[in-house]
């Protein structure tokens, strides 16, 4: 771990950075949890950043030429290659610093943002390659659990049972028929120094994790649960409540994997039933009691597995 990591005392209400690297006035939907997560992540990182975006909601809402929400240098190339583009930026910085063409002691954090589709599906190979090669960068997956930008199609991160436009419930389907892909576990399997999960409901926790991700040497992966009122059929004002419920029901547990060691950062000892989370969203309203029980059982088992990982290691 770096010296800066040891020195980092964490953000609190008293020492929040004043800078807003991500400007207001963008075109995100009302109540968008993703843009909030993006703003908080950048706030944690500060102004000495080069940001790379995959194609997706955050890219289109922030950059309709000639406007931009990015007060830090920003590059968007395509959908599936944010991690590869970030690899190039990071390597270039390393070469330029070594050759004296960029101030050697100036710290610049390279951060790549992508949605769940750009991470779990089409961008998984580029992500894996970049993590394996050990580039010093932060990859942030802003997970709103479907392809929202193109009109709510299912992704590998869409949860079981959810209705999307390509996983519609019908006589022969309950909606999404597969369980959510565990991308943080895939990232951790690369043996990288830092992996974490976060949600904008616990915003200090989110900012601290993003900051720690930037402070480690080598690749870091942060998976941020990002409520999407438009895609989920929820009220704009409910986004934070839902993000909180996702944690309190153990559907989206908050944890870190530091040098391969799992730490649960918010233990949920008295979980709320998953139904409380599911019933607030139109995408789950078709689910039967039986399906909800199935989801509850899966959530319980997954949490058990996570507990074991956190204890055994």
């Amino acid at each position, binding site marked *: 771990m770096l010296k800066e990591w040891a020195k980092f005392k964490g953000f609190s209400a008293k020492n929040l950075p004043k800078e807003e690297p991500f400007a207001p006035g963008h075109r995100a939907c009302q109540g968008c949890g993703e843009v909030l997560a993006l703003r908080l992540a950048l706030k944690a990182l500060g102004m000495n950043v080069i940001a790379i975006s995959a194609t997706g909601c955050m890219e289109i809402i922030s*950059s309709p030429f000639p406007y931009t929400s990015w007060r830090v240098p920003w590059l*968007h*190339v*395509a959908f599936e*290659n944010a991690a*590869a583009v970030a690899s190039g930026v*990071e390597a270039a910085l390393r*070469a330029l610093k070594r050759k004296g063409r960029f101030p050697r002691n100036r710290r610049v954090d390279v951060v790549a943002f992508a949605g769940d589709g750009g991470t779990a599906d089409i961008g998984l*190979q580029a992500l894996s390659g970049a993590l394996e*090669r050990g580039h010093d960068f932060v990859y942030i997956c802003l997970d709103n659990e479907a392809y929202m930008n193109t009109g709510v199609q299912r992704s590998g991160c869409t949860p079981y049972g959810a209705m999307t436009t390509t996983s519609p419930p019908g006589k022969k389907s309950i909606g999404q028929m597969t369980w959510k892909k565990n991308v943080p576990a895939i990232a951790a399997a690369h043996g990288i120094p830092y992996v974490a999960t976060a949600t904008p409901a616990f915003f200090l926790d989110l900012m601290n994790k993003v900051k720690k991700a930037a402070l480690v040497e080598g690749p870091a992966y942060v998976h941020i649960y990002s409520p999407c009122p438009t895609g989920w059929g929820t009220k704009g004002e409910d986004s934070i409540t839902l993000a909180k419920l996702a944690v309190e029901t153990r559907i989206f547990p908050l944890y870190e994997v530091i040098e391969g060691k799992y730490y649960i950062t918010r233990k949920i000892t008295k979980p709320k039933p998953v139904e409380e989370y599911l019933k607030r969203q139109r995408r789950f309203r078709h689910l039967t009691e039986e399906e909800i029980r199935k989801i509850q059982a899966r959530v319980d088992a997954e949490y058990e597995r996570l507990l074991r990982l956190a204890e055994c290691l």
Partner: protein
Amino acid sequence: MGKRIAKEVSIAIAEAVKQCRVDVIAAYPITPQTHIVEHLSELVANGELDAEYITVESEHSAISACLGSVATGARTFTSTASQGLALMHEILFIAPALRLPVVMVVANRALSAPISIWNDHGDIMAERDIGWIQTFAENGQEAVDLVYHAFRVAEDRRVMFPAIVNIDGFTLSHMIEPIELPDQEQVDRYLPPFRPRYKLDPRKPLSMGPVGIPEIYTEAKKAQDEAFKNAYKVILKAWDEFEEVFGRRYRPVETYRMEDAEVALLIMGSLAETAMTAVDRMREAGKRVGLVRLRLWRPFPLRDFVKAVKGLKVLAVIDRALSPGATGGPVGTEVRSALYQVPGRPRVVNFIAGLGGRDVTVEDFEEMADRAYVYMKKKPKEPYEMIGVKE
């Protein structure tokens, strides 16, 4: 002046890339490009070349990493072939639109299926419209020289477009030829350090790669097209300066024995050397045959090309790629279109030859010229013919 010594062309290209003092290389191995990137990784490993070598997991990531690297202000190189180039396809359009001057050597190879590692131009012709500067080398010396030129032109602030140097896979990439590598001092004189007008730097933030709504997309593309056409002058000037520094002269269109030619073969790449032998033989037999070679393919050297073919009766265009169901090979259709408005234009006949590593011999070229003579008097039945097909 450097010494002229025998070297494998791929190795010489890697040495030239080293002399260009690249900062970042991102490449994925594919036959027949491998010797270039292997030698570059060796140079980096030995400390002879101070660069970051990113061993990406695919060509798609290779070109993506290159874009990130150039955008940050680093001189960047990559190389690929065939399927690898096809995998890059999506990103290839983005590089010139963002005005990111990556330099790439493509060791031209056929596209699958059937899978073939051997040479033709099918891979690069599928990338005709990507908006990169594209040149074709005839021999090892030219391949090396075009690399220096590519960096020089691409990074010029009046240009800022990526550039591809095409070399024929195996027939050029794996040949051992006498090649003169210049002194480092000469290269440094010719190629100034990369100082991009725009780059990603927190001290001066900017946004690259924004959304283009319908109100501005057309204007953005018009601006790109204008800038690309304007690059032509810089390309020529950079070749003039090349001559001053290195003593070798290059032009966008080469001609051979065209003085009083009535029939000419037109070709790109290394097959031109064989074609020259054929031209010599036909000249000895009293036929007024010449040769035109396009060194610069994009931007298309329209005026120089029209000048080169003036006075011809028949121009036989040899394509090393097939465009199924089209009115000709990619070069054939381009050339026909280029000449359409030219009064007294020669008849353009189109041959498809040398696909997937099929040898094109002196005799084949003689046959094509003979057919061209036949078509001087009567119109060909088909818009293009394939040469050397076993039936």
